[in-house]
């Protein structure tokens, strides 16, 4: 790692910190401005409600509340949950992060694997039925919303298959997350959510891989390699694909965003206890600290993911230096 790389990482870290600051204040302001509050269902009135609000510091001006939250957040303390009274938000969010990260990671592997495979196959069989099949499949992939694929997954695997085989095939639907452990059952439960998310993003990867493969395979060094008598597979994988990866890397940030959105939606369909489910629930229950905490974690996550993508860029294309 050179000095320039370090400087670049520090610059990006500053931008991430600034993003978190702006975005967390925005969300903080918005959720605290929502009508109603977390205690409304308690049938508390008058002085009792005031006392409770005071206890949680919710009667102070919003700037001061944010300042207090920020002081804690810098030390890794994202406050306490208002619905699950007194439970610290940080461990809850970190646990949910591990669940979401597993689903998102599986979706990413699926996306990149399928996208590259289909893209390369479509390119080396350009203008044949293989090409048309995969490019059409790619457009269908990013046209069908992930909630549709997720719902169909439930319909087919959790209900239809179960009925048809009279219970012999059982798809464990609500994956509760494995805190440690794992194994084949986790892999099976995680696959359906991951595929529902990944089909959308794999479509984009297929298309960009195909386009950049077509461009790379026209270049002289490929002809040279072919003239040398190298096998087609070696040329495709070692010579062409490696160079075709550079444009593919350039859409990875949007892939990461797509997967995160997908995880958010799919978690709510499949009842997976991750960040996305928590985000939606905490908005409905006015659990301010959880909403802001989840949002903050999301922002940090994307910042770090994008930084990782940019650093990987330099690995894929050594001409790029920071």
């Amino acid at each position, binding site marked *: 790692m050179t000095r320039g790389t370090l400087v670049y990482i520090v610059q990006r870290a500053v*931008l*991430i910190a*600034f*993003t978190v600051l*702006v*975005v967390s204040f*925005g*969300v903080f302001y*918005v*959720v605290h*401005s*929502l009508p109603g509050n977390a205690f409304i269902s308690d049938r508390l009135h008058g002085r009792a409600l005031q006392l409770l609000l005071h206890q949680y510091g919710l009667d102070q001006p919003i700037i001061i509340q944010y300042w207090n939250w920020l002081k804690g957040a810098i030390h890794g303390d994202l406050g306490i949950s208002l619905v699950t009274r007194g439970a610290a938000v940080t461990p809850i969010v970190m646990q949910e992060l591990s669940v979401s990260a597993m689903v998102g990671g599986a979706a990413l592997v699926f996306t990149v694997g399928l996208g590259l495979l289909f893209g390369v196959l479509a390119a080396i069989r350009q203008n044949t039925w293989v090409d048309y099949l995969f490019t059409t499949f790619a*457009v*269908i992939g*990013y*046209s*069908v*919303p992930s*909630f*549709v694929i997720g*719902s*169909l997954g*439930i*319909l087919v695997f959790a*209900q239809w298959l179960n009925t048809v085989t009279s219970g012999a095939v059982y798809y464990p639907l609500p994956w509760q997350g494995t805190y440690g452990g794992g194994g084949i059952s986790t892999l099976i439960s995680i696959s359906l959510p991951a595929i529902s998310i990944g089909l959308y993003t794999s479509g*984009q990867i297929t*298309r*960009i891989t195909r*386009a*950049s493969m077509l*461009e790379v395979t026209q270049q002289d060094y490929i002809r040279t390699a072919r003239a040398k008598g190298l096998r087609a597979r070696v040329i495709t994988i070692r010579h062409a694909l490696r160079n075709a990866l550079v*444009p593919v890397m350039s*859409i990875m*940030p949007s892939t990461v*965003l797509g997967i*995160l*959105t997908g995880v*958010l*939606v799919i978690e*709510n*369909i499949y009842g997976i206890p991750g960040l996305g489910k928590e*985000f*939606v629930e905490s*908005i*409905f229950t006015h659990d301010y600290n959880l*909403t802001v905490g989840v*949002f903050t974690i*999301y*922002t940090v996550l*994307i*910042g770090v993911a*994008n930084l990782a993508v940019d650093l990987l860029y330099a690995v894929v294309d050594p001409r790029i230096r920071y």
Partner: protein
Amino acid sequence: MATTVISPDTDVVTEYAGGTLAREQVSLWRDGLRRLRRNKLAVIAMVFLVLLALETVVSLFWTPYDPNLVGACPTYAFPSAQHLMGCDDLGRDELSRVMVGTQVSLAVGLATAFVVLVVGVLVGLIAGYLRGWIDALISLIINIFYGVPPILPAIALYVLLGRSVQNIIIAISATAWMDMARLVRGQALSIREREYVEAARSSGSKTRKILFTHVFPNALGPIIVQATFSIPIAILTAAFLTFLGFGVPPPQADWGGIASEGLQSLQAGFDPYILLFPSIAISLTLLAFNFFGDGLRDAFDPRQKR
């Protein structure tokens, strides 16, 4: 010597005397439209979208049943001749609800595209052409939100503003213009260095005139393509919002909301058609917009490869 010129799609043979090779003069737009017309998928998509627009207009005045009438038919009635798509948990006619649901999707898609077009292009032009502190500020804002999935601020903003179709449009547009601004800024940065802009500047044209008569028209191809693709993205985001329960106020029907009800019915053990019909509707619509956008891109923005 006479040269024969055959124009590619009219098959008109023109004889030229004198030996100069003449080519039919084709404007950028005619050339693009011609390429678009040859793209079968794009044409099919266009026909579908026109039919969808017609269906939306029809649904404003007429649906088979009142879409919000509870008890128009038996609860969970299976699709039949009277109720082509069956009935939902409250005995409302599904076909009528899916038809009316088109209104929300198209309204959100088109209105967001309009906001994206106006705001994104203006901001991008100003940032890219003027540069300086204003560009720094705009770029900073865009960079901050670049790392946030658009659905998160959309959810937060929508909940704050309250439930209505109008607020869905505001919530989605709030971040959707940034992609367009980023694109237009890049175009403006490169176009402002061209000779014709320099010529206009040195002959005393006002900034506003340069922006709209020189910079904007030369970036129009990518702008149109980007605006077209912002429609399915907005429809998809709106469907996510309504599916997650941040929907339009009931009883108003929209596709994400119906699909969400359908999933609940499915999990309660009922037939899946309530889920299937709005899902098919939204998937076909997004597919049509994407194919149409691809066709536009191939026709008007050939340098772009994605």
